[in-house]
């Protein structure tokens, strides 16, 4: 879909940010409507359902988290949080209640646009956003919680991975024991860190290998396939944890 047909609802109580941001997004070709609080956002939703909502967390009255919960439960709308806090807790809370992404204020406007497109692309592919992002992955004793982006090794030790590595790993985990060529990986992984992938996928693969392989020079888990591609040589189980 082209950006001109994309309808964005921008919810933020700070007019000083909301108005220039709406202008900027309009110039980028989005159809932007504004709401200054949660109540106005709800009534705007009754008039017209947008394709995506940009939502400030800290607002007087009903806050962004509460509104997001309602949006995700009732309408399955993609949500990107705008937050002033950058701590991990906020991200987890935001993503667990069903937001698709978040940006930390002050954000780079171009980055916001990149993320809007990325979320819409994912939402479009999956029909709705958040289809099975909650299900954990398990492979060779390793464990990946996609909400928290938390990878743990067979001993339960957290192994920090970057966003690019996370997306690459999810792409491989979603297609276990299948050869994935570089272009396909690049296409699947290209998200908000698109610029990172100007560098080769191979670079990210070797970074990931350093973290998950016993010996990164003799990779067993992520194998190189002659003819240009990579394959995850492991059985992958997915499950939704009852409690975490």
């Amino acid at each position: 879909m082209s950006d001109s047909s994309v309808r964005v609802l921008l919810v933020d109580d700070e007019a000083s940010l909301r108005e220039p941001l709406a202008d900027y997004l309009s110039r980028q070709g989005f159809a932007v409507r504004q709401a200054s609080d949660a109540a106005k956002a709800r009534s705007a939703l009754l008039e017209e359902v947008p394709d995506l909502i940009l939502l400030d967390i800290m607002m007087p009255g009903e806050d962004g988290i509460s509104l997001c919960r309602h949006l995700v439960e009732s309408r399955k709308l993609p949500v990107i949080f705008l937050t002033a806090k950058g701590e991990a807790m906020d991200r987890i809370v935001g993503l667990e209640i069903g937001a698709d992404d978040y940006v930390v204020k002050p954000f780079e406007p171009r980055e916001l646009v990149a993320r809007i497109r990325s979320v819409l692309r994912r939402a479009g592919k999956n029909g709705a956003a958040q289809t099975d992002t909650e299900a954990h992955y398990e492979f060779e004793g390793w464990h990946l919680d996609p909400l928290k982006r938390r990878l743990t090794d067979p001993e339960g030790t957290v192994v920090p991975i970057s966003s690019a590595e996370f997306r690459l790993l999810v792409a491989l985990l979603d297609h276990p024991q299948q050869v994935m060529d570089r272009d396909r990986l690049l296409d699947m992984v290209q998200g908000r860190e698109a610029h990172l992938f100007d560098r080769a996928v191979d670079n990210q693969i070797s970074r990931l290998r350093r973290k998950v392989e016993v010996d990164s020079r003799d990779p067993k888990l992520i194998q190189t396939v002659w003819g240009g591609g990579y394959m995850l040589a492991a059985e992958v189980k997915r499950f939704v944890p009852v409690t975490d």
Partner: protein
Amino acid sequence: MIRRFLPRSLLGQMLLSVALALLVAQSISLVLRYQAEERRIENGLVNELAFQLVADPRIEFATRDDQRADRQERRRLRIERALESPQLQGESRNRERERALHQVLESQGVAVSELVVISREVSRDRYIMDGLRRGGRFLRNRWDPGGELVVAGMKRAGEDQWLIARAPRPERPRSTMVGIIMQTLILYLVMVGGLYLLLRRITRPLAALTRRVERFGGVADGAPPMEPSGPEDTRRLITAHNAMEARIAGLLDEKDVMLGAIGHDLKTPLAALRVRIESVDDEAERAKMAATIEDITHSLDDILSLARVGRPSDPLERTELSALIASVVDEYEDMGEDVALGETERVALPVRATWLRRAIRNLVGNALRYGSEARISLTRENDQAVIRIADAGPGIPEDQIAHMTEPFTRGETSRSRETGGAGLGLTLARAIAEQHGGTLVLSNVNGEDGAIVGLLAEIRLPL
């Protein structure tokens, strides 16, 4: 020296002082009672000798020195009459007893012309040994050949015969000693035991309070306030402590809310500004503005983090340090910076990854800003994980290096706005290292000619 062996706790010191006081009191009492007992025994002895000497002349004893050997003497062996003084050669007289005996005899109206008191071993007293040889259960019960006896000889005025009385020397009052020692032991058990139980009622709540205060970091960790226990004084202390804990927690909560508000109120206008500069046409100008906003944001984050570092909200999680470091290095590498990941080992530690990543980022950022390159390594040394970040910059003058981790300090040589940063980066890195129970050490790296060739920052974390 002695101080080292003295107990330090209230319980130990109280018990020791009570035990010492009791020991002194019992020792004095023991000495006094021992002396009194000895005097009583001495008086008994003197009186017995006096009684024999005064009473006996009225009872006839047919004992003569020359006849004694061949006569069957069955009567009670009691007193001897002799022409000679009972003092044998080499024996010394006991003047003190003589004086005491003399007094007693005098008070009985006996005119004494000569008086001799000596003590000797029973086995060397011919008179008693002869009597013993002749038998008689009474004698054997009274005289122990291995013991000693006291011999008193008296010559009345106007007589030329000696009257010689004998009495076994009484044993030292050992039985009283045993008694008083037993008594002391029982007192010890009762008093010290009772005191121990009583003191424990005070010291147990105190120890619990100490542990609580040591652990207290102002975090409402869900632990209920301490139950007041022990005597009234201790209870009041615990109640007061609980109130203080609640006040501190309240203040800290307030601080967190305030910091959140400051962060929000400053970052929203910054975000607005960041959006607005997109309409600046001059590309170079816009990049400068964006960089300035980024600097402000970074400083603001450092300030907010520094204010929160003592009270982190996220839990410790066992984390692969090498992967954490690699992800920071990769970030900088992707930005085209000159970072190199050197030797790394797999080290898993319980850390707060968000915080530690921030500390490493600050140190790498510093290295790149002042030293143009950063070499990072992770090694396991003894019982520490050591993260080293080295640059190739001018280092820090030795006299300033210690102050570098204090807030708002920057190297004098680089104090210009262009380098940016509020000077909180190192302070925050140190605070984060300390949050994890570790340290941050800065040191200059010297080349072969002794000149400074770079700065080394080491985060040491306990394994």
